[in-house]
């Protein structure tokens, strides 16, 4: 055999071997991907379409176009949820967004209805978490405040709050832990009372520029009302009487009122 041909042959086999290796790697990758998809499928919730069809949109919003429909009795895997839309994957691997209202009409594998938590009046009465921001007045100073609350039951909540007050004379921070009792959570406008305490910090004080002990304990009692707006939102307004246990001889008594917007989830 001429040497040129031999070299060519060797080259061909090398290329072949390379192609083989590439194919093997490809197969391995494919298998791994398959296994991963299988594991994922086991982790995901599967729901069955019970209405004539389920519409899948291109985005999580009412205005996004419907790009796919899933027919009755077919299933989708629920990947995740964003606000009131669910990212789902069909049996054919197509992904899209289904609205919570449509998803409510689907069934689980055992035939029972797929129940989910929708932001509505019922949710306003019974929910676990709340977050919100409020503004107001703290004895003449501007007050910016946030809070997070956890519901122990429909009436009782534990609340963690942080506020900053910014006044002409002084400014600083407050951190509080309190308990809130809502009298009639089923009412749209429901009053509540609150009691709690925390730390009161002074950053700057024009009247006492050389303040040494800048952090004191404080306690408060207050009353307010919550008003359900729509979806997951409610308004909140409250009045508090606060006592600062200063390291000086006199305790300070300060008035605080604020209003704000909050949501539950």
């Amino acid at each position: 055999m001429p040497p040129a041909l031999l070299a060519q042959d060797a080259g061909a086999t090398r290329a072949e071997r390379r192609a083989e290796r590439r194919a093997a790697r490809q197969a391995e990758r494919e298998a791994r991907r398959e296994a991963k998809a299988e594991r994922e499928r086991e982790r995901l919730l599967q729901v069955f379409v019970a209405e004539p069809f389920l519409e899948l949109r291109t985005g999580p919003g009412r205005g996004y176009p419907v790009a796919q429909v899933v027919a009755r009795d077919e299933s989708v895997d629920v990947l995740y949820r964003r606000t009131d839309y669910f990212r789902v994957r069909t049996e054919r691997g197509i992904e899209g967004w289904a609205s919570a209202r449509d998803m409510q009409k689907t069934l689980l594998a055992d035939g029972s209805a797929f129940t989910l938590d929708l932001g509505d009046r019922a949710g306003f009465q019974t929910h676990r978490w709340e977050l919100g921001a409020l503004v107001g007045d703290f004895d003449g100073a501007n007050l910016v405040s946030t809070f997070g609350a956890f519901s122990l039951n429909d009436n009782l909540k534990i609340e963690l709050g942080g506020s900053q007050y910014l006044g002409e004379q002084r400014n600083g921070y407050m951190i509080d832990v309190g308990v809130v009792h809502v009298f009639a959570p089923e009412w749209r406008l429901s009053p509540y009372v609150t009691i709690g305490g925390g730390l009161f910090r002074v950053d700057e004080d024009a009247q006492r520029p050389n303040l040494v002990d800048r952090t004191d304990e404080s306690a408060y009692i207050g009353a307010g009302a919550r008003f359900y707006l729509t979806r997951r939102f409610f308004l909140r307004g409250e009045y508090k009487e606060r006592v600062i246990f200063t390291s000086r001889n006199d305790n300070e008594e300060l008035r605080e009122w604020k209003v704000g917007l909050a949501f539950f989830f």
Partner: protein
Amino acid sequence: MESRTRVLLLTRAVSVAALSGLLLSGCAALRWPWWGERSGPAGDVTGAAQDEYQEEADAPPRVIDPEVERREIKRPKIDTENWELGAYYGWLTVEDFGTNPAYGIKAAYHVTEDFFFEANVGRTRLGLTSFELLNPGADPLNLGNERRLTYYSLSFGYNFLPGEVFLGRNLAMNSAFYVMGGVGSTKFAQEQKFTLSFGAGYRVLPTDWLAVHIDVQDRVFESDIFGTNKVTNNLEARLGVTVFF
């Protein structure tokens, strides 16, 4: 007299018992639907089979154990991706102190498809005032090296124009134009100012979990740093990247 009555009652009792026995046996021959299908020969039967059949008929109806196990549905928790966390970089103009690079972090919670809450904390360095520029070395405000400005704001946002953008033939990305307003504070030159903020921005999502923002904010606060009280508008333009989780 008494014995006659007793006989009468007894005969009555016997006749009733006989009649009911007859009736009951007759009833037993019937196939009530609630008794179910009974197996057994119906036509010509041998004596043994007849006996067996009889025994079976006398025994209480067999209870069949249904071998259907109730399928247990394990309902996996659905991952909610309403939180958005990220960082931004841009320019903040502070009135009288020039325009300087600013950076910060922000977190948002999307409550509905339309509304969201956002908190952000940012920082910049103050530039030189015109007085400091004209008089090198002068420090009338006693700032020294304390030229840092820190702010935060808590805002409420509205996705004003949700939509999609198209890049070429094969790529569509969700987007939204949003407006926001909020409250917060600004700290610089050893003073803290109550701050109102207003802004608008544009968000594009290359994937479902990644968002790129371009937004402009106006931070409004009252400043008396130069002796007289005045309301200042401080504009900030920034580019940010956030992830949903």
